[in-house]
């Protein structure tokens, strides 16, 4: 009998073990993967306030931020800032997935095109007037920053902004018999140069393209904010709530763009998988890209490139700008909020901005700095900075969805042979539905 009892005990022990596993497992299951500081804990220890900062992983940004945090902590010994990063591709998903758990960062870096969703969901808190007065923001920062303004309040502020420029390969210009120091200044010149820069094999396949047509890169911004305006239209109404490119100007602009592939045959989307790869490999004469790309291009020593303002058309200049802005999450309160605001003030200081440009290649977000001749006459950053004076920041609601509209329009023309009018009208309808869904709920 004793033996049997022992056996029963063991059994009971076994079930206890199983029960224990059942209880513990979910706790570890959640806690193990999320190394996120839970707000409102660990505050008591040593009177230090710990705040968490999130941005996506981009090596130069992460390194500079580590350095900046060190300096910020030295100046504010009672604050500890922890930086956490995620791969760019999953960043938005990661942020979104963290929201319902109520855990996550105190200060967060978000693409301005994502702000509407997060503000709408109540994820970000508006910046208090006492620390960041609206009037001061608007007098100091570049006007495009108002893409972070909703219902009269600012929810996030950038350290840096980005604009586009024409980047050309000087060696390929020379080889094609063009002046390597004289990039195209108008769209007409661009077409002529692009044709000379394009090479085909005996079957007519591109072995070198004249111009990037990477629609899912920066080219969808070229059509939306630049070409449509240059052809006499405008992409949206002033408030960004209504699509207005389904006009003759829109059709003409898109015809010009698609004709670069179909008629002029100077390039195609995804040549050598993408524009950056092709340009780095010296197989693409010209591209349109942001200042943040210069670091990538500088890493290829044999590549000799120049930067110029985006070609004009009919005397119209236009540019597209965008930015990543830092905001403060809703559950950041009390001491953490104070610390976060301090940190945000630090990140938007002129000193950090000028260092950011040198290290990252993104442009200062304040007017005084970007007007500084030291920056605006820089041979590489100058064209980007000068572009800021005539730039537009699209009020995106769903950046990926609004980009897809143009990708589909392109495919409908090049693969299914539809007319520019048909596809632009369809694009306008689809994009308007995206806008309506957001503004009319």
């Amino acid at each position, binding site marked *: 009998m004793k033996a049997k009892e022992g*056996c029963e005990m063991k059994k009971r022990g076994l079930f206890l073990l199983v029960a224990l596993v059942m209880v513990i497992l979910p706790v570890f299951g959640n806690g193990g993967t999320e190394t996120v500081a839970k707000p409102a804990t660990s505050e008591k220890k040593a009177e230090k306030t710990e705040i968490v900062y999130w941005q996506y992983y981009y090596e130069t940004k992460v390194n500079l931020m580590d350095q900046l945090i060190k300096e910020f902590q030295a100046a504010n010994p009672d604050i500890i800032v922890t930086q956490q990063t995620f791969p760019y591709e999953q960043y938005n998903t990661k942020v979104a997935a963290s929201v*319902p758990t109520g855990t996550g960062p105190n200060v967060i870096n978000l693409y301005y095109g994502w702000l509407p969703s997060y503000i709408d969901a109540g994820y970000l808190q508006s910046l208090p007037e006492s620390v960041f007065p609206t009037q001061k923001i608007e007098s100091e920062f570049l006007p495009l920053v108002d893409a972070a303004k909703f219902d009269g309040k600012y929810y996030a502020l950038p350290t840096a902004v980005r604009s586009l420029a024409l980047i050309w390969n000087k060696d390929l210009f020379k080889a094609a018999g063009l002046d390597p120091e004289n990039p195209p200044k108008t769209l007409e010149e661009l077409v002529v140069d692009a044709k000379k820069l394009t090479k085909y094999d005996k079957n007519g396949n591109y072995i070198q393209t004249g111009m990037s047509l990477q629609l899912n890169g920066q080219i969808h911004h070229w059509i939306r904010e630049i070409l449509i305006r240059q052809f006499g239209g405008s992409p949206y109404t002033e408030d960004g709530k209504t699509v207005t490119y389904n006009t003759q100007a829109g059709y003409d602009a898109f015809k010009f763009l698609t004709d670069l592939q179909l008629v002029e045959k100077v390039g195609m989307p995804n040549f050598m998988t993408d524009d950056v790869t092709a340009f780095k490999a010296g197989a693409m004469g010209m591209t349109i890209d942001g200042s943040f790309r210069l670091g990538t291009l500088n890493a290829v020593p044999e590549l000799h490139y120049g930067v110029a303002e985006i070609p004009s058309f009919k005397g119209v200049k236009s540019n597209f700008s965008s930015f990543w802005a830092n905001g403060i999450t809703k559950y950041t309160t009390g001491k953490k909020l104070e610390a976060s605001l301090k940190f945000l003030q630090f990140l938007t200081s002129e000193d950090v901005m000028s260092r950011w440009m040198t290290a990252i290649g993104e442009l200062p977000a304040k007017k005084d700095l970007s007007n500084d001749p030291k920056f605006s006459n820089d041979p590489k950053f100058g064209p980007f900075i000068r572009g800021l004076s005539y730039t537009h920041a699209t009020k995106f609601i769903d950046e990926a969805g609004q980009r897809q509209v143009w990708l589909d329009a392109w495919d409908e023309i090049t693969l299914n042979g539809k007319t520019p009018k048909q596809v632009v009208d369809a694009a306008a309808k689809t994009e308007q539905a995206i806008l309506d869904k957001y503004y009319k709920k």
Partner: protein
Amino acid sequence: MPGYSSRHLLFLQKGREVMLPTLSKNNTLAKRKALWAYAFLAVPLVFYSIIRIYPAFSAFYLSLTDWDIISSKKDFIQFANYQRMFQDKLFWKTFGNTIKYVVFGLPISLLIGFILAYNIDRLDVTADLYKAVYFLPYITSMVAAAWVWRWFFQPAPIGVFNNILTVLDLPNRKFLSSPKEALFSILTMTIWADVGFQMLIFLAGLKNIPAQYYEAAKIDGANNWQLLVRITLPMIRGTFIFLLITGTIRYLRIFTQVLNMTTQGDGGPLNSTKPLVLYIYDNAFNKFEMGYASAMTVFLFVFILMITLFQMKVTKDEDA
């Protein structure tokens, strides 16, 4: 055997080392062993309940709400998501793509898998080598393989296939950049990766056919074709049904290769390769429409369930 429950019979069938102590120690050892088995099984069971089964069932609830992940409000909107789904052209297009993956992909992969297994089964010395070679793609990371194939399918000068066509003086093909060819290009890669698995399971089935049957048939003067049709195929029916059902489910859930082989994972060009699972993912994690995505998930769940039950029923009926 009197005094033995069906569970003991199971052990008896599995191996003698279990049966012998069972008889001598009056069942307690078997009970304890079974208990330990349950204990170990409990851990994955609990794990799966929390990580997979519970979230799967919460999808039913979410499908009746308009939850967008990031906001705290979760309004109950009854069947509005389902109504929207049945009117959504893109939903039907992606569902159609999913069906195409199954209808074109699975039979080819089963056929090639069987042909490989049938021939490898007849080899002696080099069989292991062939098994390894054909099984290798199956254990290769799908993401890595997808990217390599994506490069294969590029236009000249970097795409291997188009370069071969150029050398042979044949017109180049668009492959992944054509709405007509893209789905089949992705399917080619999928079958390449899948065939090894089918082959291995078929091989196991073939090895289980007793050699006496073939010997007897040969004595009766049967030729190779008759052996195949009259003995081999009927004897591996069980294997075939298993592969058919698991394969259907696998092809209905195609996702990784499309995400990696299309430009920025958009299932293009013009949604021609986008399977339903990718459309669900898109809605849930890019557009944050979790409610709508859940509704489509429930639809896919019910669809897979019906297909599986149907297949099991049909194959059972034939047994009887």
